[in-house]
């Protein structure tokens, strides 16, 4: 087989291979998403209970992804969870916006929902979102329900 043809076939193979890897990273993975969110500013929020929230979870406002959770740590001064959020610089939120931990679907992933407030001042980098609502813990919910039922039964 002549030289040129071998070179051509090897070139084709290598290009195909790299194309496949890029396809996996961009189309099947989240490379495009994580690169698009490179221009961000950081905000913090404290929660009493974060449930099953994980780093890299989405931050959504009105259902649109506006940022990601970059870190979660336990604050042993307040005994609360402190969550670091990276928000897209294109979107500004009022200072008194509230954050809650929501679940997509019944058993889906947990994410942070941002509800904008009415303040004229906007959140700046490093600000803390003060109004937060914890994750709903299924066990507590069932416990409350059972207590309610028991109280009802006792009243009869």
């Amino acid at each position, binding site marked *: 087989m002549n030289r040129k043809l071998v070179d051509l076939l090897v070139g084709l*193979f290598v290009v195909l291979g790299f194309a496949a890897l890029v396809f996996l990273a961009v189309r099947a993975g989240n490379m495009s998403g994580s690169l698009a969110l490179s221009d961000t500013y950081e905000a913090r929020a404290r929660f009493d209970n974060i449930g099953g929230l994980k780093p890299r979870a989405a931050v959504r406002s009105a259902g649109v992804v506006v940022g990601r959770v970059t870190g979660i740590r336990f604050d042993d001064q307040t005994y609360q969870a402190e969550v670091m959020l990276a928000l897209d610089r294109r979107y500004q939120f009022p200072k008194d916006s509230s954050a809650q931990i929501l679940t997509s679907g019944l058993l889906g992933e947990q994410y942070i929902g941002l509800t904008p407030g009415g303040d004229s001042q906007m959140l700046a980098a490093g600000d803390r979102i003060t109004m937060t609502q914890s994750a709903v813990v299924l066990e507590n919910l069932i416990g409350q329900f059972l207590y309610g039922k028991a109280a009802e039964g006792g009243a009869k």
Partner: protein
Amino acid sequence: MISALSAPFRWLLDRLALVGYGTRFFLRLCGLGIAAFRRPRLVIDQIHFVGNYSLSIILVSGLLIGFVLGLQGYYTLRRYGSEEALGLLVTLSLVRELGPVVTALLFAGRAGTSLTAEVGLMKAGEQIDAMEMMAVDPVARVLAPRFMAALICMPLLAGLFSAMGVLGGYIVGVEMIGVDAGAFWSQMQGGVDWIEDVGNGVVKSIVFGFTVAFVALFVGYEAQPTPEGVAHATTTTVVVASLAVLGLDFILTALMFSST
């Protein structure tokens, strides 16, 4: 003193010596492999021989495995009403495990055996001895370019395998069964991390490339220079390389994904 040692102990010493010799051979291959790039022609020829000829089997089996994953995944996920996660299931199983592992097994069967047989026959035909007579290092001239070519080919083939598998899952899941195409891709992109999952898969395939290439060349180079010796060496390559890949896969998986 040695002759006084009992048979099992001597056997153990032999094995240990083989491990030591293998390690030395491996390091020598790595060092000479880098030097082999001074003559890229040799490496390119071997990429053609090892990579291009494995392309058909890798692409077809990737597609078929994607089909099967799509079908089986759908049957199980449907029970829990989460068919939309099919894309995630297919892609995660491919990029984390099946892509690197099955590619390495096929690669050992397709390319590893031909490398072993080729090197073994060169030895049986006294070509290796002839090179040594001419003061040409057969490890540098014959083995190192093949080693490098196999190293380059493995991750590319594994990537192609996974990509074909994802396409296969898409064809079965979306085109034939009717899972929503948007959910298929968005669940996949939501759950597959390009460093954690795709990157670790590539690391795995590179490690497997080292394993298969080293086993194939070492076994071929150490083969008895007879027809039976070469036949035996080819079988050994498939058995040892496959077991090594599966064993290493367990260790690598435990290291990479245990924290998540």
